[in-house]
């Protein structure tokens, strides 16, 4: 059984990152997704002067007599009560699993799970609900692919989720089940974070596109984090004979291939075309694109530091956390 390696972050560092992220955004910024605002609830906030249009039922007569002027009335204002949810969706396709369980390597799936764990910690500190889901696993039933957690449950639920994802058998290229049912039940104030490498093709890509589309429907926010491993892998492949192995082997493509510069240039074009297809879909609006270059996939020691810096940048770029309004 494959187990997730320890997260490069310790809780104190995560707390620092959260605070830095909160300081970086203003309360009313459009990108600040999870914040409190004035509204109707039983949660008292303050007294303020009556303005035209205020509900006369909220006038505090006693306070007005004690503190207000002759024609000044004080009204009670309340906090708006909204239930926010952070949904993290992981692409657990075969390309994300490359290198999983091998010594001396860090797979993209592990990095995605580390991101989940870090976001879960921050959500706990912010008293937010968080849900974890994967794009491919659980294709038979759409309900069990989303794991909801709140408060102290997050650690236990994340452990269960990561074990399930790490040891799941990878879904074929054309696999993946639509997430319409799961995403359609999300509350209005939700943010969905997608962690993927943009290497899904065919039906798998359609599944992803549908999920993103559902996640941003109704003016909800979606963040797509692109885990880009091509530059690192390109350096590995240069001028060597490689076996296509499990991932690269398809019908008519078997055996060994010599990766010359010319052929790598062709691969550059193929991957660029693949990315552009995703970016066109993302740039339709309501989606924040956060590219994350994975530079230390083959060096676990350097990979920890790369992850820490990458996560800070991702947090700032995604504008996930802001100050309470």
């Amino acid at each position, binding site marked *: 059984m494959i187990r997730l390696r320890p997260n490069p972050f310790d809780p104190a560092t995560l707390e620092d990152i959260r605070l830095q992220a909160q300081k970086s955004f203003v309360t009313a910024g459009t990108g600040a997704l999870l914040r409190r605002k004035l509204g109707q609830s039983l949660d008292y906030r303050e007294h303020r002067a009556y303005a035209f249009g205020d509900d006369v039922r909220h006038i505090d007569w006693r306070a007005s007599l004690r503190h207000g002027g002759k024609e000044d009335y004080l009204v009670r204002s309340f906090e708006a009560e909204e239930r926010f949810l952070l949904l993290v969706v992981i692409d657990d396709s*075969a*390309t*994300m699993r*490359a*290198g999983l*369980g*091998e*010594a*001396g*390597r860090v797979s*993209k799936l592990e990095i995605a799970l580390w991101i989940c764990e870090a976001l879960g910690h921050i959500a706990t500190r912010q008293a937010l609900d968080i849900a974890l889901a994967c794009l491919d696993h659980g294709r038979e039933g759409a309900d069990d692919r989303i794991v909801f957690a709140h408060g102290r449950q997050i650690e236990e639920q994340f452990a269960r989720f990561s074990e399930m994802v790490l040891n799941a058998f990878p879904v074929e290229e054309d696999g993946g089940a639509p997430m319409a049912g799961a995403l359609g039940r999300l509350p209005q104030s939700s943010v969905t974070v997608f962690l993927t*490498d943009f*290497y899904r*093709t065919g039906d798998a890509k359609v599944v992803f596109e549908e999920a993103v589309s559902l996640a941003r429907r109704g003016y909800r926010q979606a963040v797509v984090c692109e885990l880009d*491993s*091509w530059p690192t*892998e*390109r350096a*590995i*492949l240069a001028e*060597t*004979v*490689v*076996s*296509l*192995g*499990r*991932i*690269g082997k*398809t019908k008519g*493509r078997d*055996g*060994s*291939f*010599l*990766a*010359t510069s010319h*052929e790598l240039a*062709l*691969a550059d074009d*193929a*991957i660029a075309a*693949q990315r552009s297809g995703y970016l066109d879909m993302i740039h339709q609006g309501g989606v924040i694109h956060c590219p994350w270059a994975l530079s230390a996939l*083959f060096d676990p020691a350097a990979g920890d530091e790369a992850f820490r810096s990458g996560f800070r940048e991702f947090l700032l770029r995604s504008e996930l956390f802001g100050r309470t309004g």
Partner: protein
Amino acid sequence: MTGLSFLGGSYLALAVVGLIIVALLVRYMRRSTVRQVDLSSLRFLPELSPATKKRTRWQFAAPLASPLFWLRLLALLCLFSALLLDGVTLAKREAPTLGVLIAVDQTPSMAAGAPSRAQQARALAGDIANHVVALGGCWRQVALPFTPIAEGARDQLARDGLSPIEMETLLTASLEQDSSCLWTHVAVVSDLPRPPLLALAPKAGGKGQAPMMPLWFEVGGTVANRALLGAGFKAAGLQGDDARLTLSLAAYGAPQDDADLVVTGPDGETIAPAEPVDLSGDGPLVASYPVSRPGVYHAVLSEAGGIEIDNRLDITLGAIAGLPIALGASLSGRPIAAFAGRIAPLVEGADRDDVVHLDVYRGGQDVTRRGIYLVDGPQGDATPLGYFDSTSPLLEALDLDLLEALHPHGLDRLPQGFEAVASGADGSIWLATRGGPDPAVIMPAPTGGLGADLSDPAQLTWLVAFINAYRLVSNDRQQLLAVTHVNEAGEPLRDVAFESNLAKVAGHNPSIVDIQPVVHAGGTEEPFWPWLLLLAVMALCVERFLALRRGGERRAA
């Protein structure tokens, strides 16, 4: 393939291990250039030009740089060594031990002296035992011939003597049988000198141990003694002298009183010596007695203070003279008749069975009676054997039993039942014999015919052959003489010759202090191959551990 065989198991093991090592070297040197790498971007690689999957590169130094290779090589070598060195053992040093087996001579000669040698031996054995106990060792006292010495039976001596070979055998057996102690020394207390080259074989299973050299303690002093060593017989001579019985005696030291030697004949009659016997002297002595008929003679040497076990002899004489000779008619008056008359009395009677017939052999006749038949005239070519010459003195020692095993021939065709047994180098003398109840010999006539002068020295070879032929047909090879030492009851005794003890004791005893604990370098041995096997298993375990740890790295690299 049924005939396939190997010189030995070790050669087969060597071949197998050699093949494995070669395979191991090739595996390390032959690295595939194709990298087994699992990258997520591989599916976006274009249709690349196919490369040869079997392309390899040879790295001759690669095995030397790999600790896994050295571990596997070590494991293989250990396995091979374990197969090859299964007979090698490790000597296990032990604490010094002392175990002394004290063997006391109980043969009859130990009764001599006052105090007797047996008493002196017991005292010496007690000293040795006390010394061993003081050093913390163990001891056991046994008797030779080998019997445990029980209380109350210590003065019981054996009836017979004991030869050195038998003594060595008994001592070795006593060491083998008694495992109550780890024997490091054997101390023999005896009145005999130490037999040369006496060494006890190591205990069975004690591979590598040197033979044990017994410590030899002599006890007793010199005792004046007379002994009957043996007897001889001289048949009646051709010159008319009588048959004689000779007795060999030995004497040492001054006798305490006059000794007396009495010889009695088959009917109990006392036989007077041919010459007076003087037993007062010192040294070897021969006494001669005239005898006239076969039978059992007794010789008794009486003395006081000596070792009387060797003072009685039973002498059996098988035959004193042969059968009379009955001459054939054609030989009467010939020189050969006179010669035959000197060997045995001549009698008449061509039909008698109790005589040796001496006649001329005629070709084709049947020979049925006991006798000597001479071939006169031309003969067939004899096969020269060359084992004796006609002038050789060895001819006098002609042994018919030996000649019977040879197969020369003198006649073209021998009568039924005869075997040609011997021939001279020149073919002039040959014998054809027939055994059975009526033995007979066919031999050539003397050189020059039946009328030749037998006093001519040239006829000596023929005369010797004739005498032998007569002995064959007359005595029928009876045992002439048998001599046995007996006790007073007439029972035969063995190995008395070793108990005469005429000129001892040398008294070169080792010191009791020389008996010290011994560290057995090879006392307990354990095989070496289990250690090699353990080392091989450990090397394989470490190799597996490292290999599993590096497995992932190898795949990624």
